[in-house]
């Protein structure tokens, strides 16, 4: 998409040697003791001067590893140069060419495994803070009320339906609208954004940011319709045959929460992470009774969260903010195997979250009213590596122990939601119930594409966005090929 990388002269006044000597800028954060009791954003973001200082560190590699490692191939080098030129608007438009949601990815991407892992500076010292720079550009755009919108292709007259409004859906919508197609997004919930609004908490990703990114997509021409559960309210066949959609992209997310299937899991006070986070985030239960949706009280009580992923960190940190007396992560392996982002784990520790490793709940214990009062766990040790390459935990006989707790949140992953597969004849699925898609993300049904968690199982925001972009490309090619066959 970009040619600035090759042709423009650099706006960086420093020689390369001096650039790499500059220290990485520390992003301002809310104090840990303060933020543990509010839902305001933890990271405060770079002010312009810090963004400039951090940008000066980029040595402008001829073959930038950061771009290579980015699932959506953002032209990081060009963006950084535009920051140094202080043309933030152009920087925003440059990011948006490849990334429909920069204010979001700048906050939630696991950058240590992606762009920043490709940065040469990281080999000897610390990589350039790429996510913070991306966030700076996107925030500047939003705060100044301006919008770096890339130019769209002329209308093609083709209509694409996108099912879901999470990261895969929005990334796909952004690319398709730019290619000149008409795009209509169907969302099952009352609010747009999918996991970005029901899953990721306000203190990590303010809703206002998601709303803004969606508003930008709307201004670019994407249509949105809420309260449509595809598979129930309307089927894919009805969309393609009755409502005139030329192609459909299924981006519904992973769906059903997994429970532990141990005795007592139905007691009051036991939540799936999906439900707990949905109540807190989407329904704003932390502002009850101003908002109507209630949440089981966490205040002055002991809360445990079972799991070691980002969802577990989000849940445990939310419980602290709801006033929990103690908030603990119970994970069946060790900290090394935890799938959560390093930064999230650090944040949780700073805020006072307790980590209990190598334990697994075997039973929940309730009182006569059916309210949770304790959890019985067994200690484990690491055995041989399993299919995922991680060492499997093995229970230690006789090591059971009982810990009092009033709230337990199960963050043990999700499985495929069957709504679409049950109502879409001809759609091939995998053994685990996910939708089967080839490398181009085409499904077994002509004109129907699928991507994100409903294909891969639970993953990250940016991987879903990468799938959304890939699907957009495939859908574009498909639409062009059908034009030819009709003529």
């Amino acid at each position, binding site marked *: 998409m970009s040619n600035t990388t090759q042709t423009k002269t650099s706006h960086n006044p420093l020689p390369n040697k001096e650039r790499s000597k500059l220290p990485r800028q520390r992003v301002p954060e809310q104090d840990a003791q303060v933020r543990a009791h509010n839902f305001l954003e933890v990271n405060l973001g770079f002010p312009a001067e810090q963004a400039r200082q951090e940008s000066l560190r980029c040595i402008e590699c001829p073959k930038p590893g950061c771009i290579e490692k980015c699932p959506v191939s953002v032209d990081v080098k060009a963006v950084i140069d535009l920051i140094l030129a202080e043309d933030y608007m152009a920087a925003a438009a440059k990011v948006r060419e490849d990334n429909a949601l920069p204010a979001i990815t700048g906050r939630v991407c696991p950058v240590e495994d992606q762009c920043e892992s490709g940065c040469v500076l990281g080999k000897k010292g610390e990589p350039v803070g790429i996510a913070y720079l991306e966030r700076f550009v996107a925030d500047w755009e939003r705060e100044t009320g301006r919008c770096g919108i890339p130019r769209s292709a002329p209308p093609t007259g083709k209509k694409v339906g996108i099912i879901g409004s999470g990261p895969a859906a929005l990334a796909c919508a952004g690319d398709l609208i730019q290619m000149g197609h008409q795009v209509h997004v169907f969302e099952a919930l009352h609010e*747009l954004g999918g996991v970005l609004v029901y899953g990721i908490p306000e203190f990590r990703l303010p809703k206002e940011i998601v709303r803004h990114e969606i508003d930008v997509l709307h201004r670019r021409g994407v249509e949105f319709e809420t309260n449509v559960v595809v598979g*129930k309210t309307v089927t894919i066949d009805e969309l393609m045959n009755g409502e005139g959609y030329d192609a459909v992209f299924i981006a519904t997310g992973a769906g059903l929460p997994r*429970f532990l299937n141990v005795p007592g899991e139905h007691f009051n006070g036991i939540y799936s992470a999906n439900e707990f986070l*949905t109540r807190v985030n989407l329904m704003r239960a932390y502002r009850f009774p101003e908002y109507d949706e209630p949440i*089981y009280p966490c205040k002055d009580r002991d809360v445990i969260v079972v799991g070691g992923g980002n969802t577990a960190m989000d849940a445990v940190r939310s419980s602290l903010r709801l006033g929990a007396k103690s908030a603990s992560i119970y994970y069946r392996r060790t900290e090394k195997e935890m799938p959560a982002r390093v930064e999230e784990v650090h944040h949780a520790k700073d805020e006072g979250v307790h980590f209990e490793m190598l334990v697994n709940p075997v039973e929940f214990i309730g009182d006569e009213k*059916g309210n949770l009062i304790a959890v019985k766990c067994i200690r484990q040790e690491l055995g041989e590596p399993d299919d995922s390459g991680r060492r499997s935990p093995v229970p230690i006989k006789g090591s059971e122990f009982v810990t009092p707790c009033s709230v337990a949140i199960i963050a043990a992953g999700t499985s495929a*939601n069957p709504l679409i597969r049950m109502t879409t004849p001809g759609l091939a699925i995998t053994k685990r119930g996910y939708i089967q898609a080839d490398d181009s993300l085409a499904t077994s049904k002509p004109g129907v594409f699928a991507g994100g968690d409903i294909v891969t199982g639970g993953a990250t925001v940016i991987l879903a966005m990468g799938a959304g972009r890939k699907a957009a490309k495939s859908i574009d090619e498909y639409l062009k090929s059908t034009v030819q066959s009709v003529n």
Partner: protein
Amino acid sequence: MYEILEARPLARGIKLFVIKAPRIARKQRPGQFVIVRLDDCGERIPLTLADADPEAGTVTLVVQAIGKTTMLFNMLEAGDSILDLVGPLGKASEIENFGTIAVVSGSVGTAMAYPTARELKRAGNKVISIVGARSKDLMVLEDEVRAVSDETYICTDDGSYGDKGLVTDKLKEVMAGQKLDYVLACGPVPMMRAVANMTAPQQIKTIVSLNSIMVDGTGMCGGCRVLVNGSSQFACVDGPEFDASQVNFDVLTQRNNMYREQERESIERLQADPQAELDRLRRRNHKIECAAEVVGVTNE
């Protein structure tokens, strides 16, 4: 935004609403439900679809004022709008010719049972309806039920209308007189449990429609999980109808009490100044309606 076209009181604290929702009206089948959110501070609650008119693009809800949201809902009138309405959710009722069937319903449960009873009648069943309420002024949809039933029995707890007694007393009588092939029970949990206990010894296929607490209604949160045959099932996607003999009613009751304190608090807040709450809802929804053009988010 979903416009209320008709709002008609049916009984004390129970109101019927006809609401414009063309997509839902096209797809609705008996036994399914919707999730409602009144305004942008509202909670999401499930309500059974009492009827739908695909041509008019409307759905019918029968709402009993029990919690804050249903109380506020029942203050709405024709011309008002509710912010969110999504569905039809859950599995539709199983409709086939079972033979002789009893449809047992209590209070507002009659609104759930009625559309299924109508379809079962169309499918060729002999339909015996047993409708109960605490007293006469809580009885709803009697004429509708009579129109689709071969026999209709009315019971009230206080004897103010029909026979004095519980629906299960009447069911016992009916069962003594003839062999039932199928029973559908919709209503309060104790009533459904009593029906289940009564039909189990004779192994009569008995279906109950469960009213668990829900959030999304699409299987995403698992809040509505119930113990069925010893394993967790989601009422929103696996139900709402289940084989009564396999349902653990104790767990259902316990989970439905999970937010009792908060529900009480919300009701107190509403009752402190109901008119102010209603005005606030109308203002909020009006504001959103005006902004919808600008934002471009549609729903119908």
